[in-house]
C-alpha cells in the first residue's frame, strides 16, 4: 500500500466530499439536496386476551431461561412463482442456521410450533383492527384473505407469518400535509430472539402469535422530522381506540428510507419514535455515500464485469499483526485467509455512517451470512493500522497486490470460508451498482447494521389452511358507530380550549382525552383545567414513581366525581391523587382523613387572620407589607385547599388583611 495513505484523513475527506451534515445541523435544504424519502410500517399489538390463530393467552412474557421444552427447525427456501428462489431465502439457506425454539407451556401450544393448523381468526382482534382501519380512512376489503408471508430467519416456526389485508388506500392528516396510507394488515407477532451465535439462533415463543396490526404509508415523508410526526400520529391514532397494548415492545416501527438514486432500505424494529429522525437521516446519507463510492469505483476500475477478489490461506508465520483475535483464531484451529480487493484502496475507509466505513458493510455481512462472529476480519485501511501492525507488506506480496488495492484478513471455521469469500466478493460487486436492498438493524446511536437481504414481493402466497372471511356492510357500519375522534381534530380541540401545548403529546400517548371529555362533560369541569391537571401534575407524579398496578385512570374520574358531589374544590385532587396512586383501593373519605382534611366554612378559614398578622409582625424581618399576605397564605393554604379555590381565598385573605389593618388604624388615635 501507498505509505502516505491515511485512513483517518480519507474518512474525513470522503465525509466532507459527500456533504454529510449531522442531523442537528441539517435543514430541509440538505434533505432536498440528497433527495430524502421515507415511509413507515407501524406495528402495534392489539389488546386481546388471546393470540390471533390459537387460544393461547396473549401478552404473557417469560424470561429467557423459563421454558419447558425446546424444538429445532431448519428453514428451506421455497420457489417463487417465477420458479426462482427469493434473494433473502437463498441467503438464509446459505447461512445454514439451526433454529431453536424455547417453549413455555403457559404461552405456547402445538399451533405455535406449527404442529397444528390455525384455528379461526380471533374475532376480537379482527374487530379492533377494523376499527383502526376505519379510523385510518382505509377502503375496507369485502373479504379477508389470510396470506402467508415468508420469513426464513426463523422468527416464526412455520417459516411464514399469517397476515391479511383489512383496508387499502387511506390517509392521515399531519400538521401541514396529508400522508397517504398503502394498507393496514392484521398479523401474528413473531418470536423474540434470545441469541444468534455461529450457526445457532435461539428464540422464545411467548410473543409469537399475539395479534398485531401493521399500518404502511407511502414514502411521502420528505424529512426525518416529518417521519417522526407521521409515526407519532399513527401511534396516537392506534392508542385513541383504547384497543392496543402499551408498554415496551408492543409498538415497533420499520422505516423505509432512500436518497435520490438510492434503493429502498428497511430499518427494522425501531422501538422509539424519537430515534427515527437520526436513523433515517444517517441512512439517507449512507446511501448517498454508497453512490459516491460507486462513482469512485467506476472511475478506478476498468472492467467491472471481470472484477474479482483473490485470496490465499495464511499460515501462522505470514501474519505480522499483533491483533489478539487473529492469534486466538489460529489457536482455535480456524482458517486465516488473506483477500485482495483490486482497486479498492480508499474505499474500505470511505465514510458511510458517523464512525463507520465501507469495511463495516463487509464485516456485518460476514457475521450474518457466513456466521462468522465479530471480530471476523481486519483490513488494510483500519484506523488502528499502525497500532495493530496491519500494513502487512508480506501478505500484499503473497497476494500480488497492486498499489491501488486493498486487503482483508478474515478468519473462521474452514467450512464457513467459501461462503465468507463469496460474501466479500458479492458485497464489493454490489458497490459497483450502488445501494443494495437490505433490511438493517437499528441502534440507539443512530447507526444501522446489515440484517438481511430485502425480501422480494414473491414471498406472499395464500394460506390454504384458512377460509376467506367476508365482511358485510352492516358489520362494518356497526363498527364505525363508536369510533374515537380523529387525532388531528383532537389536536385542534386541545388548542381551542387552551390546554397547554406541552401536554398534547402526553395526553395523546396515554389516550387521556376520552377521560378529560368524560370528567368535563359529566362533572362540568373545564377542559383546560383537567387537561393541565393530567398533562402537568399527574404526568409529573407518574414520572416520579410507578402507580400501583391496580391504579387506573378511572380512579381519576372517580376522584373528581367525589369532589363534585362533596362540593369540594378540585385543587384537593392533587394531594388526594398522591395517596391514590399508591393505594388505589382506599375510599375517598379515608384519603381525606389521611390528609387531615376538615370541611370548613370560609369564615372559619379566615378567622385566624388577625392573630396571624400579629404573629407575623413579631417574627418578620422585613417591613414590606406584601410579605404579610404571602406568609399568611402559607399558613392557611393547607386548611383552605378543597374548601375554596385558592385564587378566591387569596383574594379574601387580602381583603381581610386590609380590613384588619384598617380597623387597627381606627383604633390608634392620631
Amino acid at each position, binding site marked *: 500500500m501507498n505509505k502516505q495513505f491515511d485512513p483517518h484523513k480519507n474518512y474525513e475527506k470522503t465525509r466532507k466530499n459527500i456533504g454529510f451534515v449531522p442531523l442537528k445541523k441539517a435543514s430541509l435544504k440538505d434533505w432536498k439536496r440528497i433527495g430524502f424519502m421515507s415511509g413507515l410500517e407501524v406495528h402495534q399489538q392489539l389488546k386481546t386476551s388471546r393470540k390471533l390463530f390459537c387460544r393461547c393467552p396473549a401478552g404473557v412474557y417469560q424470561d429467557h431461561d423459563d421454558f419447558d421444552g425446546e424444538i429445532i*427447525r431448519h428453514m428451506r427456501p421455497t420457489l417463487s412463482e417465477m420458479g426462482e428462489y427469493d434473494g433473502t431465502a437463498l441467503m438464509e439457506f446459505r447461512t445454514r442456521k439451526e433454529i431453536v425454539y424455547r417453549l413455555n407451556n403457559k404461552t405456547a401450544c402445538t399451533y405455535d410450533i406449527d*404442529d*397444528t393448523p390455525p384455528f379461526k381468526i380471533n374475532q376480537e382482534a379482527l374487530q379492533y383492527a377494523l376499527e383502526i382501519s376505519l379510523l385510518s380512512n382505509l377502503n375496507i376489503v369485502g*373479504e379477508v384473505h389470510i396470506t402467508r408471508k415468508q420469513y426464513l430467519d426463523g422468527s416464526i416456526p412455520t*417459516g411464514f407469518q399469517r397476515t391479511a389485508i383489512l383496508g387499502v388506500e387511506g390517509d392521515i392528516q399531519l400538521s401541514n400535509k396529508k400522508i397517504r396510507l398503502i394498507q393496514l394488515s392484521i398479523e401474528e407477532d413473531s418470536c423474540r430472539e434470545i441469541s444468534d451465535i455461529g450457526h445457532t439462533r435461539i428464540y422464545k415463543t411467548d410473543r409469537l402469535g399475539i395479534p398485531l396490526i401493521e399500518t404502511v404509508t407511502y414514502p411521502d415523508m420528505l424529512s426525518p422530522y416529518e417521519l417522526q410526526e407521521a409515526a407519532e400520529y399513527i401511534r396516537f391514532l392506534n392508542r385513541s381506540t383504547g384497543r392496543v397494548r402499551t408498554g415496551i415492545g408492543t409498538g415497533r416501527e420499520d422505516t423505509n428510507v432512500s436518497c435520490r438514486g438510492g434503493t429502498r432500505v428497511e430499518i427494522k424494529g425501531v422501538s422509539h419514535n424519537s430515534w427515527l429522525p437520526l436513523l433515517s437521516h444517517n441512512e439517507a446519507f449512507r446511501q448517498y455515500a454508497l453512490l459516491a463510492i460507486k462513482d469512485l469505483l467506476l472511475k478506478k476500475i476498468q472492467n467491472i464485469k471481470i472484477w474479482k477478489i483473490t485470496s490465499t490461506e495464511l499460515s501462522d508465520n505470514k501474519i505480522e499483526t499483533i491483533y489478539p483475535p487473529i492469534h486466538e483464531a489460529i489457536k482455535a484451529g480456524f482458517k486465516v485467509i488473506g483477500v485482495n480487493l483490486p482497486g479498492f484502496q480508499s474505499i474500505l475507509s470511505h465514510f458511510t455512517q458517523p464512525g463507520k466505513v465501507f469495511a463495516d458493510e463487509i464485516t456485518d455481512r460476514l457475521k450474518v451470512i457466513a456466521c462468522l462472529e465479530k471480530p471476523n476480519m481486519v483490513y488494510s485501511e483500519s484506523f488502528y493500522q499502525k497500532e495493530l501492525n496491519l500494513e502487512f507488506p508480506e501478505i500484499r506480496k503473497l497476494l500480488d497486490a497492486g498499489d491501488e488495492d486493498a486487503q482483508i484478513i478474515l478468519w473462521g471455521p474452514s467450512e464457513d470460508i467459501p461462503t465468507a469469500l463469496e460474501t466479500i466478493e458479492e458485497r464489493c460487486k454490489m458497490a459497483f451498482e450502488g445501494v443494495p436492498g437490505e433490511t438493517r438493524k437499528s441502534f440507539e446511536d443512530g447507526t444501522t447494521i446489515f440484517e438481511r437481504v430485502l425480501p422480494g414481493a414473491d414471498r406472499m402466497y395464500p394460506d390454504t389452511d384458512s377460509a376467506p372471511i367476508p365482511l358485510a356492510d352492516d358489520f362494518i357500519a356497526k363498527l364505525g358507530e363508536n369510533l374515537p375522534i380523529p387525532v388531528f381534530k383532537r389536536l385542534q380541540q386541545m388548542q381551542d380550549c387552551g390546554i397547554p401545548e406541552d401536554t398534547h403529546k402526553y395526553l395523546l400517548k396515554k389516550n387521556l382525552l376520552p377521560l378529560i371529555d368524560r370528567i368535563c362533560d359529566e362533572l362540568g369541569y373545564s377542559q383546560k383545567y383537567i387537561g393541565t391537571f393530567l398533562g402537568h401534575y399527574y404526568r409529573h407524579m407518574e414520572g416520579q414513581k410507578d402507580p400501583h398496578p391496580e391504579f387506573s385512570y378511572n380512579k381519576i374520574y372517580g376522584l373528581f366525581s367525589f369532589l363534585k358531589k362533596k362540593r369540594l374544590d378540585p385543587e384537593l385532587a392533587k394531594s388526594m391523587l398522591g395517596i391514590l396512586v399508591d393505594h388505589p383501593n382506599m375510599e375517598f373519605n379515608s384519603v381525606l382523613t389521611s390528609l387531615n382534611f376538615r370541611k370548613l366554612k370560609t369564615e372559619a378559614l379566615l378567622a385566624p387572620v388577625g392573630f396571624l398578622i400579629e404573629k407575623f409582625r413579631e417574627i418578620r424581618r422585613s417591613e414590606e407589607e406584601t410579605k404579610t399576605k404571602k406568609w399568611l397564605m402559607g399558613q392557611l393554604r393547607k386548611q383552605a385547599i378543597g374548601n375554596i379555590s385558592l385564587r378566591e381565598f387569596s383574594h379574601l385573605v387580602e381583603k381581610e388583611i386590609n380590613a384588619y389593618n384598617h380597623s387597627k388604624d381606627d383604633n390608634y388615635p392620631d
Partner: protein
Amino acid sequence: MNKDFFQGYKGEALKILKKFNVRVWGIAEIDTSRGLFKGTVLPRAENDDDKHIVIKIATGYNIGVATNTIKTIKEIGYLKANYKIPEQEFPFTEHLPNVKLIGTGGTIASRLDYRTGAVIPAFSPGELYGAVPELADICNLDTEKVFAVFSENMGPDQYKQLAIAIGKEIEKGVDGIVIGHGTDTLHHTATALSFMVQNSPVPIILVGSQRSSDRPSSDAALNLMHACYAAGHGDIAEVCVCMFGPTSDEYGFLHRGTRVRKMHSSYRSAFRTLGDTPLATVRVGEVKALKNNFNHRRKDRNVEIYPFFEDRVSMIYFYPHMHSDTIDSLVDLGYKGIIIIGTGLGHVNKELYPAIERAKEKGVAIYMTVQTLWGYVHMFVYETGRELLAMGVIPLENMLPEAAFIKLGWALGQTNDLEKVKKIMLSPVIDEITLREPYNGYLVYQGGVPEVEEFIKKFRK
C-alpha cells in the same frame, strides 16, 4: 369468452365479471361503495361463495371485493402467470445406490402456485432435484407415478398395483424403493404392502409429510432424504414407514409396516410404533437399528408378491348400547369379514350377541381387536369374553385394528375357507402379532409429572 377466462367464478361474481368484460388475470380497477381497489383478478376456489371477486394487490396480498359493493370494473391490463417448477437433470453418480421413487399422489413433493394457492406436484427427478438438491448426494433417483389419488382414497386396487410395481422394480435390480404417500392412510398401505410383498431383498420405504413442501419449515425434504438414505444405504429390507422421530428436524424413525399408526392429526412426529420399539432411527449418513431382529438386505431378487384382497370386509368400532342391526346390516349386505374393535380386553355388549351368532351362522369371519391400541385381546378373563369366544369370535392378540382389517381383506382375498383364513390371520407375517410386548413398547407419558417434565426439557419430543 370461454370458461377459462373465469376460473372458479359462478353466480353473482361471474355475472359481474362478464358484465364488465373482465377476465381472470386481468389487472382491474374496481370502484366500489367502499372505495377503489386495484389488482390482478385471481381464480376463485371452487367451494368459495359467489359474492366476492379475489384480487392480488400490488403488495402481493390477496383481498376479496364484495360483488354487492361494486359500481364498475375496468380492465387496464392482463398478466397471466405461468407457474412452473424448474427442472434440472438429476445427476447420476457412479458409486451411489439406485433408488426408485414411486408416486401415489400424496403431498410429499408438491409446490403451491403462489397466485392461486393450487397445489402443483413436483415429482419428476428433475423437479425433485430442483426442490431438494441434497438428494443427489444420497442416491441416483428414478421416479414413476403409479397413480395419483389422495391418501384417503387409497384402497385395495392401489395396494395391488403398488405391490406388482414394487415386484417389477426389485426384479429390475434397484437397491431400494421409496413410496411417496399421503399420511392419512399411510399405515394402512404399509400394512397391505407388508403382506403383499414378502421376502424383499431391498428396503421398501413409505414416506409422507405432515407439512406440505411449499412451507419453509416443511418436514417433506428431510423425510425424503431420510427415506432415500434408508432405501439406498440401509440394511433393513422390509416395508417400513419413515417419518419424523421428534417434531424437531433431527432424525426420522423407521417403523415396521404392521405396527405403525398415525397418532396425531397434525404433529410432524405423528407416526408411532405401537406395542414395540421402532426398527431404527435414520439420519442422512446413518440408519441406526433399535431392534436386532429384522430382515437384512440381500443380493438376490427372490421377492414374493401376493396381490390379493377381498373388499367386503368391515370394521365395527364398538360403543356402549350398540344395536345389533349394525352387524345385521353388514351381514345382509354380504360382508364376508368383520373386525370388531372392542373395549378393554376385547368386549362388546350383550345386545350384539344374537347378531354375532347370526353372522357366524352365515359364514362371516369375525375377529376381535382392542380400542386401547396397546395391549393384547384377552377373552378368558371376563365372562363376556368367554361368551364371545364361545360364539366363535376369534381374538387377534395384539394386532392393531387397521392391520387386522387389512389382513382379513388380504386373507379372504386368498380363500373363503374360514379355517384357512383363521390360520393366515393367526400366523404373523411380520410382527402384526408379536409374542411379547416389551416393557418399553408401551410409552404414553403424561405431562406435569416432574420427571417427565425434566425429560421433555432435556430432550426434544
